[in-house]
């Protein structure tokens, strides 16, 4: 079960790249695994490692950002492939909040299923947070989901949007499938009236 998200404070790390795609977040060679866990070690693999060694020019490898849990990012973060391995890797690495001027739709949606809060702030606010993170070693950001606010201890405060449903999803660690299955009868009566014009037979080799 996913840990409920109410409020959170953590060290921020700035990833100053536009259009970070999910291929960069988790390269394809790690998608052959059939597990849901253990992807943190592969996060940003090609940017993070060179010949098996950590690249010092990559931001996550720098001493001052060790233990960071708030990712500052640029526009269109998480674009491309729908692979949920991307939020699995971010979450397993330790990120719980991602702040960017915009996110790609599928990635944004996937985050909420994995206890990560993606926050959209204006370009100007994101610029300011990048600047502060660069200037102040150990710079921290706090997020309060109930009041939908991001603050720091130096007077920064910004409100962010999140739909009531997604908010509940994070706050309560809701079982989405379970809650939809409560509408089983409605789904059944919908199916009785709804026409579909193809017919696939059940797999004859099925064991059930």
């Amino acid at each position, binding site marked *: 079960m996913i840990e409920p998200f109410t409020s959170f404070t953590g060290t921020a790390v700035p990833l100053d790249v536009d259009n970070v*795609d999910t291929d960069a977040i988790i390269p394809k060679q790690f998608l052959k695994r*059939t597990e*849901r866990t253990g992807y943190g070690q592969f996060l940003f693999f*090609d940017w993070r490692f060179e010949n098996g060694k950590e690249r010092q020019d990559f931001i996550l490898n720098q001493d001052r950002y060790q233990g960071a849990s708030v990712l500052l990012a640029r*526009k269109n973060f998480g674009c491309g492939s729908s692979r*949920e391995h991307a939020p699995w890797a971010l979450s397993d690495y330790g990120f719980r909040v991602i702040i960017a001027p915009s996110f790609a739709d599928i990635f944004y949606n996937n985050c909420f299923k994995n206890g990560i809060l993606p926050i959209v702030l204006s370009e100007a606010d994101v610029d300011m947070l990048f600047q502060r993170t660069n200037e102040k070693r150990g710079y921290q950001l706090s997020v309060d989901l109930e009041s939908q606010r991001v603050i720091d201890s130096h007077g920064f405060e910004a409100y962010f949007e999140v739909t009531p449903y997604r908010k509940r999803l994070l706050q309560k660690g809701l079982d989405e499938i379970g809650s*939809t299955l409560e509408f089983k009868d409605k789904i059944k009566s919908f199916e009785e009236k709804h026409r579909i*014009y193809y017919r*696939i037979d059940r*797999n004859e080799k099925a064991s059930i």
Partner: protein
Amino acid sequence: MGKTLYDKVYDRHVVYQGEDQPSILYIDLHLIHEVTSPQAFEGLRMNNRVVSRPDRTVATMDHSIPTTDRSLPFRDEVAKKQVKTLEENCREFGIQLFDLESENQGIVHVIAPELGITQPGQTIVCGDSHTSTHGAFGALAFGIGTSEVEHVLATQTLKQDKAKTLAINIMGELPKGTSAKDLILSIIGKYGHDFATGHVIEYRGEVIQNLTMEERMTVCNMSIEMGGRAGLIQPDEVTFNYLKDKQYAPKGEQWEEALSEWRLLYTDDDAVFDQIVEFDASEVVPQVTWGTNPGQGAGITDVVPSPEDLPISQRKAAEKALQYMGLQSGTPFDSIKLDKVFIGSCTNSRIEDLRKAAKIVSGYKVTDSLHALVVPGSQTVKRQAEEEGLDQVFIKAGFDWRESGCSMCLGMNEDIVLEGERCASTSNRNFEGRQGKGARTHLVSPEMAAAAAIKGHFVDVRNWVTKEREEVGS
């Protein structure tokens, strides 16, 4: 107020609309493959749940499979386990699987349309972002993550907020020697890689109406490359003629009933889109991407741009992209030398794509220093190409002729581009490392890729001199 095509399809599938929460949307067709499904099935088992509608779920294996001789054993043990897991899951839950032995196996977005399973007005999902392809039929089709795959398996529904709508009206006429791929790359290049985020796109206008179904699929396929949640095209006679007599399409009386329903799938004249743009197709020239996202492209007659010439907001990304791509600003595209050529992927691996590429290739030879491969989108495409003799055109020219799969589009199998190598690819993404670590990808049409394989560098296919098929081998 009238409704858009998107409104009509969406509204027909709302099972329940509660307050302050997304609709429960019914899913007509759930496509699954080996990479994004194992964790979803595991989730079902952990919670003692079953697949709600195995008869509305269709599986194939395409991403991590080899495209070489299928009689040989799998060399990649991890991929083998993933494929085996899909087989076991389909058996356990009673799902129809088109496996490696099946004559219908292929890329999921190629086989569902060619089997006639993809139909107008459906809601279609798959754990794959290029599910937008099926929008070419006027189906609402989009990619989902693995948690949602599990949700659909368990409930045959999805919780969905309504998206915004974007109309792209495409006017003018697509010039001779350009293709649907050039059209969509030009649109993404003009408006940007994230232009349609949060929107369902409807492609409209005479240019779209004049495209074949396969060309429409190429256009809709790349909707996600400008951030679109889905791409839609109004179904018409072209759609219906394509579907008629397909294996899973309705027959007889049912066909007539379906047709009368499908003919109602259009945007009303008084419907309002959240955003509308007009695009003049007569400006389109054959495209080549120079950067690391599909919006970073230009015409073949251009030169590699200088970041200073781009809007300020794009400069930094352009500098980074040019460095990764190993390109100098000002370099003419037709002087860029290539190491690999890949013709395939859910964007461009259908029979028409192969015919167009073969027409360019016929009678020529692939440049010695270059490795070129053709990976048909499905076994059906492969068989048809072989019946038409296209395989021989490619093989005689020096191309590798492979079994169907996703292959070098994302390099999950052995088909990769090596570090520093440059590849002309008919696929959909030129992201860093997509085709292999350090691989440099240029997205092009099948015609442009074919011509580049012959010359060893990009050329303007509008000036290509085709040879007659008879000359092959002479």
